[in-house]
Structure formats: structure tokens, C-alpha cells
């Protein structure tokens, strides 16, 4: 009797750490597994509910491919621009010292902008530079210049500019900790062994920061690739990027018969992000021995 009790207790004790995982697994299940499975399954369903490859085939249409290409251009270019400028800004902030006002202010502002930078800025854009924006109107009346120019700012180019307003702050937020992680002893040891400032950067700082930098740029890529709200506010004509195309696929009557194209597009996005994650994992594998 007592032995069964004991072993029962032991079994419970052994299960306790696993029990702690339950909320986590539940969370993952509800917010990750179920939506993903739904997306995958629905992608292969026709309007009648039967199995079909039509949705997937539609991804190969010129319109869908162009949109995907635009999405990749937008995410790629803002990841690179945001990554470079953000890293530079992060470096300035860290150089100013751990208790500097520059650091506190920049990090606080970045925290807000990285989350909410896009939408308010898009509104500001429209209000100033839109077809009937303040500046557009003013310049149109005098000296008679049309900066609206067919609305170039409200297509892909405009998105690139606006996205940078949250990509740069996000880069600052994720890259400052990496710079903080550079120990003073590493610089001093390098200098002591004869390194010039340039040699320290080339042989120590840059190699040490590269994994974090590339990781951050990939994060920025995924962030911009999946961003929706900013584009939804700014773009009024057409669907230049995939998230907007998904919106119209899900809401439009025009695309009747391809009711599930939106799911196929979502699947396409999942695949792109998965490719990016795989690249990141490969990168980490190269450095993981010294990164612990």
C-alpha cells in the first residue's frame, strides 16, 4: 500500500515540471498550431470544401508573384536600411554611456515608435503629402508644383519610407543589448596586445556583433514582411504587398470562386518566414560553439 503511494507520489513529482508546461503548450496550441493548421488545410480546399490545388496554383499568377516580389523588396530594403541606421544609432546611444540622457530618451522613444510608429505616421503622411495634404495643396497653389505626382509616395516607395520609422527603432531596441554585451576587457585586451581602434573593430567587435546584427536584420525582415496596419492605412489603391492582397482576397467579391486564395497567400507568407528562420538557424549553427 505504502509503496504504491510512494511511487504514485514520485510519479506526480516527476510529472510536476511537465505540468508547469501546460499553460505554455496551451498557448502555443491556440495561437500557433491551430491557426497554422487551419491555414495549411484551407489552402488546399476549394469553395465547395473539396481537395484542390487551385489556390496554390493561383499563387503562380503574375499578379500574385508581383505582389510577393514587392513584399520581399519592401521587407528586404527596410530591413537593410533599418538595420544599418538602427545599428548606427544604437552605437551612438551605447557610446553615450549607460546612464546618459540620450540613451534613456532614445530607448523610450524607440519603444513607442517600434510598436506604433507606422499608423500615426501614415496618417501624418496623408495629412501633409497626400492628394489634398497641407503641403501638397500649398505647393500646388504656389509655386504651382505638383508633388503628388500620381501618388508615388502612396505605393511601394512610400511604404519603404514609412516602414523605416518603425524598423529603425526596432533595430535600436534589439541591437543595444548586443552592444552592451561587448565587454570593456575585450577592447582593452585588444588594445593592450597592440590593436588600433580600427583593428579592434575589424578583429573583435565586428565578428562578435555579426550574429546579433544578422539575426536582428532577419527579425526586421519578418517584421516588415508581416506588417499590415501601416500599409492598410497608407495605401488606398491596389494591393502592392501580400498582406493587403490577403485582405482583398478575404473580403472581395470579385475573387469569388477563389474564396480560399487568402489562405494560400498566408501559407506563402509562412513559407517565406520559415525560409528566413532556417537561414537564421544555419547562421547560428556556425557560431553557436562560441555563443554557448
Amino acid at each position, binding site marked *: 500500500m505504502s509503496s504504491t503511494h510512494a511511487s504514485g507520489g514520485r510519479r506526480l513529482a516527476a510529472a510536476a515540471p511537465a505540468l508547469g508546461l501546460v499553460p505554455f503548450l496551451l498557448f502555443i496550441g491556440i495561437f500557433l498550431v491551430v491557426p497554422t493548421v487551419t491555414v495549411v488545410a484551407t489552402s488546399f480546399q476549394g469553395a465547395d470544401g473539396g481537395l484542390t490545388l487551385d489556390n496554390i496554383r493561383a499563387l503562380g499568377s503574375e499578379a500574385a508573384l508581383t505582389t510577393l516580389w514587392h513584399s520581399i523588396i519592401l521587407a528586404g530594403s527596410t530591413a537593410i536600411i533599418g538595420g544599418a541606421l538602427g545599428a548606427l544609432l544604437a552605437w551612438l546611444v551605447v557610446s553615450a554611456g549607460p546612464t546618459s540622457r540620450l540613451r534613456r530618451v532614445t530607448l523610450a522613444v524607440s519603444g513607442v515608435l517600434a510598436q506604433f510608429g507606422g499608423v500615426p505616421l501614415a496618417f501624418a503622411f496623408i495629412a501633409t503629402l497626400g492628394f489634398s495634404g497641407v503641403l501638397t495643396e500649398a505647393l500646388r497653389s504656389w509655386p504651382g508644383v505638383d508633388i503628388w505626382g500620381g501618388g508615388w509616395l502612396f505605393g511601394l516607395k512610400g511604404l519603404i519610407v514609412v516602414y523605416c520609422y518603425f524598423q529603425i527603432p526596432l533595430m535600436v531596441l534589439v541591437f543595444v543589448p548586443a552592444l552592451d554585451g561587448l565587454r570593456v576587457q575585450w577592447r582593452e585586451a585588444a588594445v*593592450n596586445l*597592440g590593436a588600433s581602434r580600427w583593428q579592434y573593430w575589424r578583429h573583435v567587435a565586428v565578428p*562578435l556583433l555579426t550574429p546579433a546584427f544578422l539575426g536582428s536584420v532577419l527579425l526586421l525582415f519578418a517584421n516588415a514582411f508581416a506588417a499590415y496596419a501601416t500599409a492598410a492605412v497608407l495605401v488606398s489603391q491596389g494591393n502592392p504587398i501580400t498582406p493587403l492582397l490577403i485582405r482583398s482576397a478575404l473580403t472581395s467579391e470579385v475573387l469569388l470562386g477563389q474564396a480560399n486564395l487568402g489562405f494560400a497567400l498566408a501559407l506563402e507568407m509562412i513559407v517565406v518566414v520559415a525560409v528566413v528562420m532556417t537561414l537564421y538557424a544555419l547562421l547560428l549553427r556556425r557560431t553557436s560553439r562560441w555563443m554557448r
Partner: protein
Amino acid sequence: MTTAAPDTSTERGVAVHLQDLTRTYGATRALDGLDLSIEPGELVALLGPSGCGKTTALRILAGLDVATSGQVLVGGRDLTRVPANKRDMGMVFQAYSLFPHLTVADNVAFGLRLRRTSTSARRARALEMLELVGLGQHASRYAAELSGGQQQRVALARALAIEPSVLLLDEPLSALDAKVRVQLRDEIRRIQLEVGTTTLFVTHDQEEALAVADRVGVMNAGRLEQIAPPVDLYERPATPFVAEFVGLHNKVAATVSGGTATVLGASVPVIDGSITSGAGVAMVRPESVSVSASPTGTASVVSVGFLGPISRVHVQTEAGDALMAQLPSALAVGLAPQDRVDVSIAGTPVLVVAG
């Protein structure tokens, strides 16, 4: 830039002079007129409590910090204004200074790579240095894969690989556990004697300083209080501060006349630096005090601390002195608080200072 590698077997290091170094940080005087000379090939330990300026002195010698005033001379050259990366010194930091993205061998070869030594030559030199510190088989590991003690060995190998004119160690053992600390300390001394590099070793640990150094400099508030070979420092501390720092924890009332002091009823010789006559305070080592149980004793036991082979007995004399005695545990057996004891001191010379 490449200089011909000096033959370490004939060139046994260079002389170092720190002259009247002052360093202020705002209102803090980290160094306050520090003078220190190190002979060629000598190992000097700078000993002192935390915050007394040891690190600052070492960093100024390395060029990583700049003196507010004063001079740094190495091998007759004035290096005061020479940047750190041109000083040709090897430094070992307290901990975590290895480059994490480089293997052990590449860490050790780092300085040679900067000097454009050929790949094969620096590989050979790195392995030679790793053999010297006993880590030849770990050349292709990363810092994260080594213990703290091994990391410090690699740091030492890295500092020595460039054949530095001066070797600088800033509390290199303080992050290690006691056993490794003693081992590595002895090894640092062996290696230093082997390569013959002039060395400055900073520590707050009295035992460590006495064990490794040719001479120990005791620092207090940004100045050197005394510098002397370990035995001299131990036996003839020049100031109360030094005396206390090298373990003379007991302060006992004494009277001096004619070169002898009367302490606890015994006559003992006084050392240089003592007062020459009158009443004062003798500084006495716990090992020099002995106690023995006696019903008619003039002191009583306050507490007994057992430390394995030795025990520490705190006593209070009728004259009002609180003393600590350190004696073999066998002699302390049976002593308990409140026991009456006789207290006596050994006849070794003592420092007596004005009370």
C-alpha cells in the same frame, strides 16, 4: 613595425619606474604621488585594500588610463604619452577577457596577428605558450569550453606570446576558487621566473602577494606605504597600516625603553620604526600569542574558533586588552568561554607605535 624578437634567455626584462603618479577622478584621488621602481626581471606585487589605487597604477603603466601628473619610464624610455597599443605590455585581467569568438590558439596568437607574424610562426608560438601554461591539448577550444582557471592560463599565455617588455596582472586569481588560486599562483611565479619578464602583480590578498613576489609594495590611499621582500615585510612592517595588513591584528599596551618593550609581562626586542621610549601599542601576530588554562590566569576566554589544524582563541585580559591567539588545535582542546587562562607572547621582535 615588426621588431626583431628579443632573445628572452639573455634579455631578462627591463626596469620600470613610476614617478610621482597622481590620478584624480573629480574629488577622488585614486593615486596621490605614487613612486614605484621595479628591477629588470623582478616580480613586484602591489598589495592593498580595495579602492587604494592598485588598478589605477597598473592601468596607467599599461596606458589604459592617463595620469593627472607624473611619469612612466620603462627601460629608460618615457612612455607617459605613448598610447596603450604601442607600449608592448602584456596584461592579464581579473576575468572574462578572452575573445569568445576565437579559439584558444587564436586568442594566444592575437597579438602576433596584429604584428603581421606569419601564420605558421604564430601558430607555433601559440602552441609553445600553451604548452608553457599546460594547455597544449586545448588549442582548438573556445573560452566558453574552459574552466575559469584554464581561461586565466590562456590569458597569461596570450599576454606572454608577444614577448612583452612588462607583464601586468590585475587580481588575476580573485575570481577563482581557493584551490585553483593557490595552484595557479605558484604556476604564474614559475612561468615568470622562466621567461624573466618584469612583472607587476596586483592583489588584495596578503598571502598571495607574499607567496609570489620578489618584493611586495603595500599601498594605502594612493601611495606606497612600504615596499620590501616578503620576509622583511612580514617581520619588520614599517607602519601600523602595513602591520595590520600583513596579519598583526593584536594591539597590546606596551612600554618601551632601551630597545626593548615590555608586553604582557615579557621583554621583547622592538623593530625599526617603533617608538624609542615610553608607553605605546605593540602590534602582535596571533601566532605569537599563546594561551594555557590556569585557575590563577590573568585573562579569560571569550570564544574559541576551530579551523582544522589550528584554532583561534579570543581572550580578554584583566588589563583590558582584547587579544586573538592562533595555536595548534591540540593546544586549544578543552578551552571554553569564561575559562581562566595565562597569556604569553613569543620573543620575536615587535612593532610598537604611539598609542
